[in-house]
């Protein structure tokens, strides 16, 4: 194998597959990147057996071939190369020569035979969605996924498809985010599956060009996402997601309209007093058209009042401030509504005049 490529293209390749490189595996081959030259392109692949990423960049090919390089060293080398043309050549089967300007590096390589094959992705239901829309959907819900591996289902995002409608749901059992979007090409039969949240975060990062279309293929236990020159394969999480519809209240006793930026800033300031407490709690009180955000700890206390519109009863409730700030970051509208049914029942946050996003947050009992 011998090629010439730009530093920019090599860097694109190594950073695209980076998240799929295992960093603590007992199998050394999983800490590597596979480089393969075929059809005027250089393919980068990496997998930790949970996620696999492949991407390709155009290069000038002298001879085709493949090799396996240790990801950490190869990525570091690529990052530090000068902005010039780089020649990669495999010699003696186990040595990659990296030539640039008047210099040369020799990197020892592994045998390609041991590198796991990325799963075949031909089978499965085919779907299409605009990359921009997918990215926005992911960003609005993925933060509510759980990090607790003890209940693996909640580390994933439930995707429900009916015709051209895609619903994504995530929860860590203290809050729940739900987002609806449109597919460009849907499924004939209703379909539901759970994708690991970590993988969706990575996918969102990989979506650079918003005009792209993302081609999905969903089979029994695998999901693949194809974006222009990047392919992501992952295992679906197995199990039955609990019935989320059941926990979303259909009625409310009070509905409040507030300014996203004002409230977000107020909570951020007041929460300084709950930073080191056990529950990160801020208390909220609504009377007439005034919302009072209050917090206290050994360090001190504080409150802020902001004007809101309230239809319904007065409210007294306490929340983990982090769960509030998380959602304020992804609400794309200037105003939002929050519905309450009692101090021990969930609050429902929705962007104003936009019913494709919903965020449910459970209070803290105090």
């Amino acid at each position, binding site marked *: 194998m011998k090629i010439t490529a730009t530093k920019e293209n090599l860097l694109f390749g190594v950073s695209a597959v980076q998240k799929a490189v295992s960093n603590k595996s007992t199998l050394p081959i999983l800490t590597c990147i596979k480089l393969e030259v075929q059809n005027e392109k250089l393919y980068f692949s990496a997998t930790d057996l949970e996620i696999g990423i492949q991407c390709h960049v155009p290069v000038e090919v002298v001879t085709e071939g493949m090799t396996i390089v240790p990801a950490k060293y190869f990525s570091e080398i690529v990052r530090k190369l000068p902005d010039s043309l780089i020649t990669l050549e495999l010699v003696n089967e186990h040595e990659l020569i990296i030539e640039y300007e008047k210099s040369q590096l020799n990197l020892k390589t592994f045998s390609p035979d041991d590198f796991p094959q990325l799963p075949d992705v031909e089978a499965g239901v085919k779907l299409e969605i605009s990359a921009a829309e997918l990215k926005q959907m992911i960003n609005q819900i993925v933060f509510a996924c759980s*990090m607790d591996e003890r209940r693996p289902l909640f580390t994933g995002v439930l995707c429900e498809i009916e015709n051209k409608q895609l619903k994504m749901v995530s929860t860590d059992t203290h809050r729940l985010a739900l987002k609806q979007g449109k597919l460009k090409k849907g499924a004939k039969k209703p379909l539901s599956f759970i994708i690991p949240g970590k993988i969706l975060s990575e996918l969102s990062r990989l979506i650079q060009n918003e005009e792209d279309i993302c081609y999905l293929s969903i089979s029994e236990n695998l999901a693949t996402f194809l974006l222009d020159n990047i392919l992501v394969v992952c295992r679906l999480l197995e199990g039955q997601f609990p019935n989320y519809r059941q926990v979303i209240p259909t009625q409310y006793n009070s509905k409040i309209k507030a300014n996203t930026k004002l409230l977000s800033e107020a909570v951020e300031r007041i929460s300084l007093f709950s930073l080191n407490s*056990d529950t990160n*709690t801020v208390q909220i009180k609504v009377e007439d058209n005034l919302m009072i955000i209050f917090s206290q700890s050994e360090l001190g206390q504080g409150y802020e009042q902001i004007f809101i519109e309230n239809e319904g009863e007065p409210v007294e409730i*306490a929340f983990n401030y982090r769960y509030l700030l998380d959602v304020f970051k992804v609400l794309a509208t200037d105003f939002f509504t929050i519905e309450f049914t009692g101090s021990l029942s969930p609050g429902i946050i929705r962007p104003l005049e936009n019913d494709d996003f919903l965020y449910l947050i459970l209070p803290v009992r*105090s």
Partner: protein
Amino acid sequence: MKRTILLADMNAFYASVTQVLEPQLLGKPLLIAGNPEKRHGIILTASYEAKKRGVKTGMPIWEAQIYCPQAILRPPNYPAFLDFSYRVLQILQDFSPLVEPYSIDEAFIDLTGTETLWGPPLQVGRTIKKRIKEEIGILCSVGIGPSKAIAKMAADLQKPDGLVLLSEQDLPQRLWPLPIDNLFGVGQRMKKHLYNMGIRTIGDLAQTPVELLTQRFGRVGTRLHEFAHGRDSSPVDPHALDKVKSIGHQITLPHDYTKKEAIKIVLLELAEAVCRRARLSNYQGKTVSLYVRGNDFSDLNRSASLHEPTAYPPAVYHLALKLFQQYWFPNKPVRLLGISLSNLTCSKYQQLSLFAPEEKLYTAIDEIKNKFGEKSLLRGSFLLEEGVFYNDEKY
């Protein structure tokens, strides 16, 4: 300001209490020990009559019986011990508001500034001993000194029924010649380390440069050096035991367990017991510690943290089991298992959860147990042969 600290240490506490409750045992060799059938048969306390013949705390019953064949055996009566301990504390509180319960049979009292009320320290010591003997019926050793460390070491100098006052000037003469394990804070393990450094007596340690000790043992080394010189600025804290730091249970298995299935049952029993206690006192814990002792008396102590504090067994059990599988050699026989929950928070504030069946389930379980007793509702597996907590009907 110069302080006056007194330590009252009840002599052979478990045995003395049992003798008060059963006066016919007074003056006889008495051994308080667990059930030998479940391998809890070690001497918890021996009365002084038995100690004189060579019985020591921690001996197995059979060995104690070689030294003292006529000794009478009694199981521990913990509710009575707690009650007596509480009554002793009440007497001590008459002398100063600063009383720190240090263990079930020891308490520190800060007498600083009470001279005009109660007279000189030795006189207070005599009064305390007299009142505990007359009102409760047991003997104690009293140590008095300018710090907690000195008071404790002074009390250890004369047992039973002792009364010793030490000042800092007395230390080189009275304490320094003693073997190193008489120093407050030195246990068997530390004794070994110090022996390896050639330190045999408290005096040796006092003469060792503090830098050397700090380098070798960190903060503990510095503290031991301070203790050897009688310096200890820690206050007598009446609330020392109010702040619960951890909630734990451990149990010696009736025989060595090797099968994972059997060990899982005991871990689940321990997790249930620990969480039940946490819930009763409104605590939630974030750190789970596993303690395992092998048949060769090797120890394993490992901790890990949960994502969020809990008082429900599933999370605690899973983490404990994970630690066990990760760190214990497969199939190595296990003699003792323990789980504790620490990094506690008071569950005054409680984050509510969706899809959390545990919350409702354990609220119901707690209500049933509160009403009908701890044994009213059990997991089926606890009644299997391998279960250790509730299989004690025979005893």
